[in-house]
């Protein structure tokens, strides 16, 4: 694998009941790259996503983050190493405000610890203030500034995904995994999302964008990887991938592109 890769998946496979969802997939992301991951339904995109995020473990193969193997680590350890995840489904914490949701995102970066928190030591107060400011900044970036004190479950679905993004950003990730962040968004929201992704890339965050909306991916991604039936069938610049007959075939075979 290339030295200095931000994310390197190597020979990863995962089967469910004898059927491979992901089969011998290798994937290398350069630091600061925005990689699109597309494929027809059932191509294995979500499984690969979960293998990197730690929601599933690979049967074989390795996953490395900046050279460190993370494939045997549970999801929370991966998060603390800098893997941020935005699920497609709304996975926020109801019963907490929007701001509190985002502040929890910084959990993996807090250092003052339990005792300091309980005793309300100055170190804890400083950290708490810092995190609150950071969380507010993340809410502003994702267009949720006006919702800070509302209960999280009151947000519309699209905004709940934006909340997940804000929560992930508050954890200051090195690698950000996004599962269909554009689905269900209106055109204006989609524009805002693509602008934000471009901004994050400029800040050096490596991103893997799993997306159904091929046009959206082609517009924002540096490079695109195409999965079909659990295998990588193409990889390259958006223009190359769009012109690849194998890709066109896969999409036409499974129905027209989205």
């Amino acid at each position, binding site marked *: 694998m290339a030295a200095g890769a931000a994310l390197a998946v190597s020979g990863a496979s995962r089967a469910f009941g004898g059927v491979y969802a992901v089969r011998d997939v290798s994937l290398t992301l350069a630091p600061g790259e925005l990689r699109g991951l597309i494929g027809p339904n059932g191509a294995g995109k979500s499984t690969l996503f979960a293998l990197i995020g730690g929601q599933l473990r690979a049967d074989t193969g390795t996953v490395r983050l900046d050279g460190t193997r993370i494939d045997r680590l549970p999801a*929370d350890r991966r998060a603390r190493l800098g893997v941020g995840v935005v699920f497609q489904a709304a*996975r926020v914490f109801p019963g907490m405000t929007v701001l509190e949701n985002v502040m929890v*995102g910084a959990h993996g970066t807090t250092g003052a610890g339990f005792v300091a928190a*309980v005793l309300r030591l100055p170190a*804890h107060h400083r950290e*708490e203030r810092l995190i609150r400011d950071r969380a507010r900044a993340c809410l502003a970036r994702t267009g949720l500034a006006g919702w800070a004190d509302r209960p999280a479950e009151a947000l519309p679905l699209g905004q709940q995904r934006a909340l997940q993004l804000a929560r992930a950003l508050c954890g200051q990730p090195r690698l950000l995994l996004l599962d269909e962040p554009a689905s269900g968004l209106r055109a204006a929201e989609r524009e805002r999302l693509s602008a934000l992704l471009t901004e994050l890339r400029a800040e050096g965050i490596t991103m893997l964008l799993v997306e159904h909306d091929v046009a959206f991916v082609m517009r924002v991604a540096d490079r695109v990887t195409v999965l079909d039936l659990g295998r990588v069938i193409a990889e390259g610049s958006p223009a190359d991938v769009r012109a690849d007959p194998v890709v066109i075939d896969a999409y036409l075979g499974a129905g027209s592109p989205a």
Partner: protein
Amino acid sequence: MSDLLGYLLTGLGIGAGFALVGSGMVVIHRVTRVVNLAQGAFAVLAAMLTSALLATGLPHGLAEGAGVLVAAGAGVLTGIVAIGRPGTEPGAALIITLGLGVLAYAVEVTVWGDQPRSYAGLPGAVTLGGARIQAHYLLVIAVTLPVFAALMAFFRGTDPGKALTACAENPYAARVVGIDVRRMGLLAFGLGGALGGLAGVLLTPVQQVTFDSDVTLIVNGFAAAVLGGLTRPGVALAGGLLLGVAQTLIAGYGGGAHQLEIALLVMLAVMVAQAVRAGSVREVAR
């Protein structure tokens, strides 16, 4: 009239103890989904240890503190055994806590014997509006209320508190933000142990403790906790106080020793009502 006030305050004192036991169960259940049947054992353990420490001449305060600390440790140990193995079902963990509660009997009888134990609490009695009540009941209330306030502040205002709440709300998403859900479960067990221990050291001066006192505590604590669906510490507090008052009133006016049966009845009624409501919700959803 003065009788009534006396019964009320005594009931609030006893009820505060139930509320502490119940809120410990709530804290543990919220985060781990485990109904901890060893919860009463934490109280007995703390009470027995405190009594033994006081007998060796350790001053009040220190002895009680040590009792609560050891109960917190027992809570963590219970958690390690009950949920330490990844993938343990909450139902299986419940049986483990039941087993640990029985094991605690053996330990307590071996170390401290099977005779009731007690120690002096806050001495004297206070006359309030014509009612004379033991000062210690007021101490129990005076300690419990700030503890609940601190518990609320902890859950809402601190990072570990929010992490515990996050685990309770959505463990899957909690992992994604770097929260070690199992460790948080152990923290919850530790907190539950401390709350149970506090109930034990507070109640022992007014209700002697034997190795099997945990049954009374757990039935009443669970009845208090179940009022809030095992998820809301605040409701557990209200439930505990209500139970305590109801029991002293009935004992005071009606006489007899049917307190435990009352708690069981309340618990059953609430659970049946909740099951009926949940059932109708399911039907509507269908």
